């Protein structure tokens, strides 16, 4: 069963076209067809990453089949004025910077979070100047519903910013998709190990970015239950286990070994099968996990 998803793109740097200005297109919600026109026929000199993201979304079959609808806004105020029960988004890509803005971005974002149930990607070209606003306590209760991404960022994770946003949107329609990971087209199949593509970050934490990408390529560009087991089997990692007290300990944790006295040794794959990916990651990261 697939879900129907509405995506709002808020950015004042959508290309300005004379014809659209004449028709006052920019003063209200910009339709999917008009966005399609902008993506296909106009120059996006200032926002190539946003153009690529929009192009990827709009060319997906989910859009053709009506599972994803996309609207654009050049200003948060226009978006707020057009929110209604029938026209509320599931995902918002929220540009942080607006030229000639009369108000700070933070209060706008707060209002959007209050008025919708959407997940908001705060999408910024100046990541480091944003956080002081977002770290304020009034954002705490919305912490699960927004995340900051730098436009075009590709060094921090196996996903680029745009790849992450793209897979997130597709996953809301259906958890099984072809997504992009580190530039690769990858078939993702949800499993007991990885419920959504975002969980790939656990695999990255264990294997490292380069090894993960290598493993994906060696396994037919697929991430499935079977391939996750293969990835970890190739890593040949071992963990110690106190089966009675249910503690996982890494072999280099001399302090924990001397105090918590493991009884068995198991492979990463066995730990994965018995305790899951989150616990395996925790054990590898800090040297200990209670399972």
């Amino acid at each position, binding site marked *: 069963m697939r879900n129907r998803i509405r995506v709002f793109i808020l950015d004042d740097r959508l290309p300005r076209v004379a014809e659209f200005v004449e028709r006052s297109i920019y003063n209200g919600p910009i339709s999917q067809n008009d966005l399609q026109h902008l993506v296909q026929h106009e120059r996006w000199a200032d926002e190539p990453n946003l153009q690529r993201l929009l192009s990827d979304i709009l060319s997906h079959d989910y859009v053709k089949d009506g599972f994803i609808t996309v609207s654009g806004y050049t200003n948060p105020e226009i978006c707020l004025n057009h929110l209604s029960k029938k026209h509320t988004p599931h995902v918002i890509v929220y540009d942080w910077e607006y030229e000639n803005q009369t108000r700070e971005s933070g209060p706008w974002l707060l209002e959007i979070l209050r008025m919708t149930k959407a997940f908001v990607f705060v999408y910024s070209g100046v990541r480091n100047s944003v*956080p002081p606003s977002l770290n304020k306590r009034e954002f705490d209760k919305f912490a699960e519903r927004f995340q900051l991404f730098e436009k075009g*960022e590709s060094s921090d994770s196996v996903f680029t910013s745009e790849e992450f946003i793209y897979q997130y949107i597709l996953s809301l329609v259906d958890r099984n998709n072809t997504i992009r990971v580190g530039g690769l087209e990858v078939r993702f199949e949800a499993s007991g190990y990885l419920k959504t593509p975002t969980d790939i970050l656990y695999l990255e934490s264990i294997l490292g970015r380069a090894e993960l990408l290598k493993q994906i390529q060696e396994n037919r560009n697929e991430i499935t239950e079977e391939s996750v087991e293969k990835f970890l089997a190739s890593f040949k990692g071992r963990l110690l286990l106190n089966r009675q007290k249910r503690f996982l300990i890494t072999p280099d944790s001399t302090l924990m070994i001397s*105090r918590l006295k493991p009884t068995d040794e198991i492979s990463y794959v066995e730990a994965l099968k018995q305790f899951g990916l989150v616990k395996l990651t925790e054990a590898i990261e*800090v040297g200990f996990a209670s399972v």
Partner: protein
Amino acid sequence: MPALSRKEKRMLGKMILPFEESAKAARDKRVRIGESHRDEFDKDIHDAIDNRKPRHRYVEVTRAEIERYIKKTGRYKRKSFLWILDDVSIKIIRERTPNRRRTHDPDHVCHTNLTDSGKAFAGGEVFFGVDGNVYVNPFSDRYGGRRLTDEQWQTILNYFRRVGYENVVDILRLLENKN
């Protein structure tokens, strides 16, 4: 309150850089975006050399949480504080302090936000109990206690006591005694 003494420093050996003792591959031992700066959190970081309990987002674990989480799993992320021991003193911050520069875990700071990505002797988690106890573990991937000897771990716990935390409880001891 006292700074770390020369004798204690000698006992603790060398300070390490983030992930220096980690089993991760060299290329993955990097501090990610948003994890290496401290300036944004200076006002929230509690220096245990000055007084005893942090003020920023201070929270205590209840008796039920101590029984259910601290004694059985050694951790409780909702109410944990991170600690590191640098060459001067213990620095503490509530883990659930938003750090929106991070892509991973933007609701939380990490140990390198306490050190400016610099060196430390060790790091871990600390929990303040309603029972007046201060529960300490050495769980940190960046400055992890996995390489510590038992003697070094005792030195750290004793330093916690010396700066004023009277009822320090070694979480590893609780886990050892778990039924």
